[in-house]
């Protein structure tokens, strides 16, 4: 069993077999093999307690269905089920997605990282700058003159009409 400690000092106990879906944790476990119990504590300083909870939920779901098996012989039905589960899992607010991306990045969990990035990309898809700004709180601080200034004079119409 290893222990994760979040930035707000909550402890989470996770089985090694489950937690080693994080490549970072896998390395730490390898490094500290055979050492005292106290060394099996991993501080995750950049994330609050809500995130380890979600990460562990994600790990457990994927622990039941390892990626290698998923690719080679998972039946269509099972794959669909996992997809549905993931869609629900990532259906959350932008701040949580942001934290999941940071956690997945520092803990090195590729599938979680990809899934969260894809979900954020959905928010940017087919929306105007104003709509995106409302959801993501990205503030558009351009003045009209600035916007015009930065447009390359060659093929100006491309940037002004097609990508606005």
């Amino acid at each position, binding site marked *: 069993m290893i222990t994760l400690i979040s930035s707000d000092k909550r402890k989470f106990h996770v089985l090694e077999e489950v937690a080693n879906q994080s490549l970072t944790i896998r390395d730490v476990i390898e490094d500290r093999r055979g050492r005292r119990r106290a060394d099996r504590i991993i501080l995750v300083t950049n994330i609050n307690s809500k995130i380890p909870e979600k990460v562990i939920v994600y790990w457990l779901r994927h622990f039941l269905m390892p990626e290698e098996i998923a690719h080679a012989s998972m039946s269509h039905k099972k794959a669909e089920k996992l997809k549905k589960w993931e869609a629900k899992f990532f259906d959350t607010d932008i701040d949580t997605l942001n934290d999941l991306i940071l956690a997945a*990045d520092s803990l090195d969990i590729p599938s979680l990282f990809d899934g969260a990035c894809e979900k954020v990309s959905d928010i*940017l898809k087919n929306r105007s700058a104003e709509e*995106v700004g409302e959801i*993501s709180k*990205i503030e558009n601080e351009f003045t009209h003159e600035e916007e015009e200034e930065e447009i390359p004079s060659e*093929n100006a119409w491309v940037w002004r009409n*097609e990508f*606005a």
Partner: protein
Amino acid sequence: MAGADRISELHDSILTRILSYLTTKEAVRTRCLSKRWRNVWASVPVLDFDSADFWSYHIPSSTSEQLKCQDKFVEIIDAVLASRQVQQVDRFRLAWKYQVRNYPRHGHPLRRWIPYVVQQLPRVLSLYLEPLYDRLEIPDLTFTCSSLEEMKLQVDCSWLGSPHPPLVALPHLRKLYLGRFYISTDFMDKLLLGCPSLEELELHACCLFISQISCGNLKSLVINGCYPTTEIEVSIPSLQYLKVTVMSSDLLRKQDIFSKTCHL
């Protein structure tokens, strides 16, 4: 935390990753979000252009209007390529329907786009072209792009003959999809020899002038809606999945496979 824009604080490498799930049009549009986002799109290692994103085919319009739309599309792609800030293309997709302009033989824009992309070692390449007048050739360079792992080619054009690249050398290609091609024996032989890592092959609505498909390590073969012109013998010892729908199915002899498909 509430009320703050935290997405924009993410590292560039994460933002480009997020944008890599979008089409190039959607990715470039994020340049209008804020100053932080101005140039993020230019480092995205994905190029994904679909003519349907830029103009609609449903509006009946004159040929000259269609020509204008098409020239605009070409100009947009050229402008985007020229403004990129990375020398990396991981995935390139071009879907170009309703191509009305008849380019001179070597003047097709693909002749500059494909080398630009191949130079940047793509893993995935997908071309869907629908020329109305032109006899269009897929540049030979496409078949020697050694970094490729997945390739999807479809050219909807009744004039297109069998591709005859002088050489096929795709050592890492695992997945290949060919749509609406004439597949000659010569082309098929070159393909199977030139793609030693091929695991999945799908032929869609192709005209098959071949009498056999034999290959070392193919795991999945899909022949979908094809027109075989003669009996085809399939002998692929490693095959795990086979799906065949042909327009005259009695021409396909399957005795070699049956024993293999039993393992599924």
